[in-house]
Structure formats: C-alpha cells, structure tokens
C-alpha cells in the first residue's frame, strides 16, 4: 500500500476548496478507511499475535465490501448528514483502492477488486509500493500550507 499519509493527503488536499471544506472529514475518513479495516487488524493480529487474519480483512479493499462498510458507518451518522457522509466516505475509499491498485507489489497482486464475485487479483504496477514514502515531505508541506491557508 502507499503509506497512510499519502492516502490521507489525497482526501485532504482535494477537499480544501471552500465549497467542499465542510465535507472534508468524510472524504478524509474514506481515503484511509480501507487501511483502518485491513492494516490495523493485520498488524495487531497477524504481526504481533501471530493470528493469520490477512484473508479475513483483505476484503475491505474490495469496492463491494467497502460499499457495505460505508453503509454501516453511515448508519452511525445523524440523518441530516447521512447521505452526504455515505457518498463521500465511499468516494474516498474508492480513491484509496484505485491508488492501491496502481502500485506494484512484489510477486503476485493481493487486492481482489471483484470480490465476492471473483477472487481474481489485480495490480497495474505503475509505481513501487514504497514509492509514496519519498513523497511524504512534499505532501506534508502541502497539507501544512493548505491548513494554514484555510484557517
């Protein structure tokens, strides 16, 4: 995966124009949602406790499961913000999946965008999976600059 900051920045930076800023939290949450649901359990269970959960949680990088997850999250939103929240969180999570599909994994691809209809994996191999780390200083500066400008 590109690091979580790159995903965060992708949602934060595009939602800073004045007419979109109010909905920034939804988009930002959406752009990191697949990793919240996949990587955090994976790090805790798989890497720290040795309980292999990868195949349980990788489904949260498939659009269909993100649709269901976003629906569940939107049920926890106040009715006045539910619809906007649902669509923007979903949009952010799809941006996340597209960015992840663009990267080049070593070996076989791991993401299953067609799940549960197919277990076929897919990767476009446009950049190395750690390439986003070298962009971190630039993205951090852009986020800080954007935050200062919109205060």
């Amino acid at each position: 995966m590109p690091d979580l900051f790159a995903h965060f920045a992708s949602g934060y930076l595009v939602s800073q124009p004045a007419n979109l800023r109010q909905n920034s939290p939804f988009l930002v949450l959406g752009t990191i949602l697949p990793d919240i649901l996949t990587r955090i359990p994976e790090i805790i269970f798989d890497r720290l406790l040795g309980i292999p959960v990868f195949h349980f949680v990788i489904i949260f990088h498939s659009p269909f499961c993100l649709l269901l997850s976003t629906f569940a999250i939107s049920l926890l939103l106040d009715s006045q913000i539910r619809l906007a929240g649902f669509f923007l969180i979903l949009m952010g999570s799809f941006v996340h999946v597209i960015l992840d599909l663009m990267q080049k994994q070593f070996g076989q691809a791991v993401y299953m965008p067609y799940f549960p209809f197919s277990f076929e994996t897919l990767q476009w191999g446009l950049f190395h999976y750690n390439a986003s780390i070298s962009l971190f200083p630039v993205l951090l500066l852009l986020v800080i600059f954007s935050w200062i400008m919109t205060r």
Partner: protein
Amino acid sequence: MLSILENHRTPLLVITVFLLSLLSIYSYSFGNAKDKEFNKTLAGCISGTRNCPQHSVVVSAQVKNLSQDYFIVNIRTRKGARWEDLFDRKFDITVFGERPDLTVGDIIALKGHFSSSQIFQLKEYDIEAKWLREIKYTISLLALVLTMFIWFKAFGFSPTELVFFRKQNH
C-alpha cells in the same frame, strides 16, 4: 427510504456487519486453503518429498550464509508470530543468480524457480529495511491521528443515540 433507514438503524447495522463477517469467512476459507497448499508444496519441495513448482514462485527466506557467487537461505514454510518458528531450518537452500547486498539474518523475498529441491534460481528480490517499515508506520500513524483530529473537530458523538452529529460551530 431515508425514514426506513432511520427507523431500522440497529437491525440494518447488525445485518450489514453479519454479511461482512460472512464475506470475511468466505475470503479466509479460500485464501487459507490456497496458502496451505502452497506451503505444503514448498515444504515438500525443499525436503525432496514432493515435486517442486515448475513455475516462478515468490518465497520468503532468511539468509543463513553468504558466499561470493551464491547465498544460502532457509525458506519460510509456516505462519505464526514467533519469527524463529517460521523458517524450515532443516534444509538449506542455495540461491544462485543476482547476489544482493545482504547480511546474515536478513529476511528477503525471492522470486524465481527451484532447479532442484536445494537450489533456487533467483530472478528478482525485494528486501524492506526495518527502518523503512518503521518510517512507514510512523507517518501512517500521523495520518490516523490527523484524521481523528479532523473528524472529532467537526463531529460530536451521542452515546445515547449512537450517532455522530455535526457540531454547531463547524
């Protein structure tokens, strides 16, 4: 439509979580069976009790010894938390091909094929330095904290109604 959602929030939430759990189990059963089969083939290959895969494979290995033209590794054939239990240490595998800059004990992903049960022909490799992984985790944690900050600055949570609502001043 929206009023149906509002009136049946809890059952809908339970059904959705249940459906996601079923999908998780479905994915796990497929993925786990595939992994088990691969690890079984790999363990059989390096012990000489099974035919090695004829196609290119990616394996995880720990470097045991280094030489000028080759290096010796132990291949990972198991899952688990204890790093020392994961690699099959009964069988040493000699890796020929490109000789990456390595030290003994490094964990490396190898892509290539077995020319015999003890010899691996390397095509590509990938090694992620520990410091790189730590940087990745640190900046990911920063993103998580910033997201929580942005979220809770904009929304409050009502534990009685179990909903996030937009704060008045936002």
